[in-house]
């Protein structure tokens, strides 16, 4: 990132957000009009790819070590990145298993949910992801005020998402976990995801607090990067869960 | 070409190779096997001959009590009798024909008007489709390809310094 100026990086982040927004809109439109599941399965993959590259900087994993000294910060940082990504891989198997269960149990039907709310929380999480990226970039360039600002926005949007799903959707849903299969699948999927969001919020809150106390610098801010990458991962999971729960297929009678 | 891309393309090549091999073997075996339920869905006609209703009224059997189909078959009932006949969801006016698509596997007993027993048995079997054979080829081909791929790394290393355990 060193070879490009901060403004250009932020600009790119905004561009990516725009692309993600377009993709989401298209997704929604397809669901409302022709509702072809193949399309609704491919679009999340595209979104995930964008986030992996631009927000989660997956390519950093493959950068050769500049510094071979085992005790150096750079080397440990690379090791930490590897560890975090290994954890994400492992975690993605849970969500993969949930998706498989959903496909196996519900097929091309979906639970009866509030479309507006679904779209709203999705957008909220998307924007929070953008601000998370903004926070990390700002930190990488040592702009602390902007970092704090963006991180606060991310955090509050994350909490908003939680309220939207657990506080509103769970209460308004016309079924309980025991009512029918759709209910069971809906609550277990959103439940697992909401739990991850919750942990992410705590993580971000800790980072924010320590950021306010000025513990991070442009050179050393692994905690910031970790929390932000984790947050993006949660967002990516939702890319797949949103169509799976709200869009694909016909309503369960 | 970086080491990573070299490795990925190598593995991809062998996975494809494995799947092709598996598919070949599977298809050959399949042909030799000569499976009966593997035909494509088609339209099968059932003709109700003239005078059926009278015979049925006397309790005679005119038509077989049932028939076997594969999923996707279309059963077309042609009514050459003088009265309206029914079979399950079908109503067939005289001299006309009606058809239904059998897209669920299982055994059904439809009520009908052209059997003394008032019922016609329809057994729909899951056809051994190409899709399932493809699935099978993938299930067998993937591990085969992986096996060949990893051992190829020993036989012909990517580069001298390349067998890092991430491979």
């Amino acid at each position, binding site marked *: 990132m060193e070879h490009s100026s901060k403004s250009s990086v932020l600009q790119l982040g905004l561009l990516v957000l725009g692309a993600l927004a377009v993709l989401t809109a298209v997704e929604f439109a397809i669901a409302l009009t022709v509702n072809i599941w193949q399309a609704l399965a491919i679009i999340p993959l595209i979104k995930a790819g964008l986030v992996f590259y631009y927000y989660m900087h997956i390519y950093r994993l493959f950068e050769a070590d500049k510094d071979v000294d*085992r005790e150096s910060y750079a*080397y440990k940082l*690379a*090791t930490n990145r*590897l*560890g975090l990504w*290994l*954890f994400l*891989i*492992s*975690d993605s*198997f*849970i969500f993969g*298993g*949930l998706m*498989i*269960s959903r496909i*196996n*149990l519900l097929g091309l039907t979906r639970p009866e949910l509030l479309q507006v709310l679904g779209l709203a929380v999705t957008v909220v999480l998307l924007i929070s992801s953008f601000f998370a990226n903004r926070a990390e970039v700002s930190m990488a360039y040592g702009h602390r005020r902007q970092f704090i600002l963006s991180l606060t926005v991310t955090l509050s949007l994350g909490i908003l998402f939680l309220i939207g799903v657990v506080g509103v959707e769970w209460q308004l849903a016309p079924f309980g*976990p*025991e009512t*029918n*299969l759709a*209910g*069971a*699948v809906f*609550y*277990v999927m959103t439940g697992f995801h909401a739990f991850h969001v919750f942990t992410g919020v705590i993580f971000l809150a*800790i980072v924010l*607090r*320590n950021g306010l*106390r000025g*513990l991070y610098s442009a050179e050393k801010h692994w*905690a910031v990067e970790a929390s932000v990458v984790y947050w993006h991962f949660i967002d990516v999971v939702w890319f797949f869960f949103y169509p799976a729960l709200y869009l694909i297929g016909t309503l369960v009678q | 070409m970086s080491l990573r891309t070299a490795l990925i393309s190598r593995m991809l090549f062998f996975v494809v190779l494995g799947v092709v091999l*598996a598919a070949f073997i*599977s298809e050959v075996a399949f042909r030799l096997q000569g499976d009966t339920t593997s035909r494509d869905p088609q339209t099968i006609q059932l003709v109700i001959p003239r005078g059926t209703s009278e015979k049925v009224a006397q309790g005679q059997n005119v038509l077989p009590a049932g028939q076997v189909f594969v999923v996707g078959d279309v059963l077309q009932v042609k009514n050459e009798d003088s009265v309206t006949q029914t079979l399950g969801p079908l109503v067939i006016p005289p001299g006309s024909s009606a058809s239904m698509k059998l897209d669920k596997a299982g055994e059904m007993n439809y009520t009908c008007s052209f059997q003394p027993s008032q019922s016609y048995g329809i057994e729909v079997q*899951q056809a*051994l489709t190409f899709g*399932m054979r493809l*699935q*099978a*080829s*993938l*299930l*067998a081909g*993937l*591990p*085969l390809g*992986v*096996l060949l791929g*990893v*051992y190829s*790394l*020993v036989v012909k290393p990517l580069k001298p*310094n390349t*067998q*890092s*355990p*991430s*491979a």
Partner: protein
Amino acid sequence: MRKLYSIGLIRGLLWQILGTALGIGILTGIRLIIGLPAWKAESAAVFGALLGSLFFVYGIGAVDDWIKVAAGNEVHEGDESAWGRMRYFGVSLDHKVIGIQYLVLSLVLMVVGGSFALIFRAELANTGLQFLTLMEYNTLMSLHGMVMIVGILVGVAAFMNYLVPMMLGARDMAFPRLNAFSFWLAVPASLILLSSMALGGFDTGWTGYPPLSARAPVGVQMFFLGVSLAGMGTILSSLNVIATAMRLRATGMTGFRLPIFVWGSLATSLISLTATQLIGLSFQMVMFQRLFGMGFFDPAKGGNPILFQHLFWFYSHPAVYVFVLPGLGIISELLPVFARKPLYGYKWVAISSFAIALIGFLVWGHHMFASGMAEYLRVPFMYSTLLVAVPTGVKFFSWLGTLWRGKIVFPVPMLFALAGIVVFLLGGLTGPPNATVATDLHLTDTYFITGHFHDTMFGGYVFPFFAAIYFWFPKMTGRRMNETLGKVHFWLMAPAFIVFSTIMMRTGLLGMRRRIADYDSTLNVTQDHVVMTVAGFLVALGILVFIINAFWSMRKGEVATGNIWNSRSPEWQVSSPMPIHNYDVPFEVVGEPYDYGLPGSVYVKFKEQE
């Protein structure tokens, strides 16, 4: 009292009790507030156990450093050498200490699980029910399975933790705190697993298939929860191993100069890192079904019990490779040392571990031949299953090639390694009949499967495990284990076990179903059961000898600080027991790892020697 409290383990247990009580209280309170009937044993037990395990991990101090970091303070690895023997009873960040802690926990669990086996083995010695009720039998039988499996997982983690950093020349694992955390998660998990006996037990077998497990007594919840928690621990520790092996290798240690054991550990960790999540998920889904009435596997609600089997076996088949791969690695480590010859076909063996692991992901279906999958799809699963025999065969070939014309010596570790090969061969050869659909439909759910499974587990894990203990005991303690007692242990255990498993398969072929408390006397297998029981107790006796030997040698064993096996592996080039931070001077890898007996060949070169 204060002194007692300062011991981490005791502190942790106290906190766990506190947490469990608190959890039960909180849950009951919540139920009161939202106006449900206050007392529901099931949810109370689950929530209590969950909170209890969290409290344990907190109480023992496995998360203190993270809390400090979160609070924005600096953390340092304290000097633990001062603690002396107490290090083993509390949180230590030293991978060697954690490895030994794992080892002890593993032995304890396997002794417990084994004693369960002895109990119902005695019950089975005769037809009819002697001294167990059906429920007791089922509980013991199910727990024997899962306790042993957890024990094996822990044992695998033990050697991966102890050996991998040493063999790589690393100072410690990549994430020491995570390492400690994942171990201390395993302790409450084991306790919860065992506590299922107190809560009515369960009668599902270790597989816990719904709908049976959806109706079983509350004990099954503890079983699910315990396994899920243990799974978390495994995932984290395997993450650690992968990161360590990829990042902390000594200079010059390229992929094909890695010790075979590290290759095996990598393959193992790859599986447990990813697949373990799915067994956790499947178990949690059944827990939710029981707690919240979700209908995943309940046909009455449109659920699909087969889905559970898919999720379950997607982990549980690769899991057996998790158990055996490190064991096979240990065999490959020891043979060259005692045959004084290079390991035959090193690269092929190294890659074979990976091949087994990767193929293992795609064969889970062969556990479901009898449970209604599309007939045509059985064939590819059969094929891929049989394919696993190829890399395994490569390993056998390499072992034989290594022994061929070697100057073989037979100390106890070598004996166990050889026994491992023989027994694993028995297990391996009885595999294909189970993999072949035509025969499996007859063999499934008989003692033949059980015998096959025990052969693979003993040959692939138990014997190499003991070999490893006898081999690396001097590294751990600075004293070597008593040879004579070791030989007694071996000659009690190995023949007895081979008789045991062979007879087991015979009864299976005669029609003895697995997992049943009683059998028909007209099967004419009663004598076989008697023989099995006797053999089983002989194995147990051998292990008793081993335990005595271990405790005795720890104090009075012959002092062995040098390279007593005259091995090339780096950890033997420094004095035993291992220095606190492994290598005071880093080494460089300059040659092939297993070139035993080749004049002038060097594997590791310490910097000081330049």
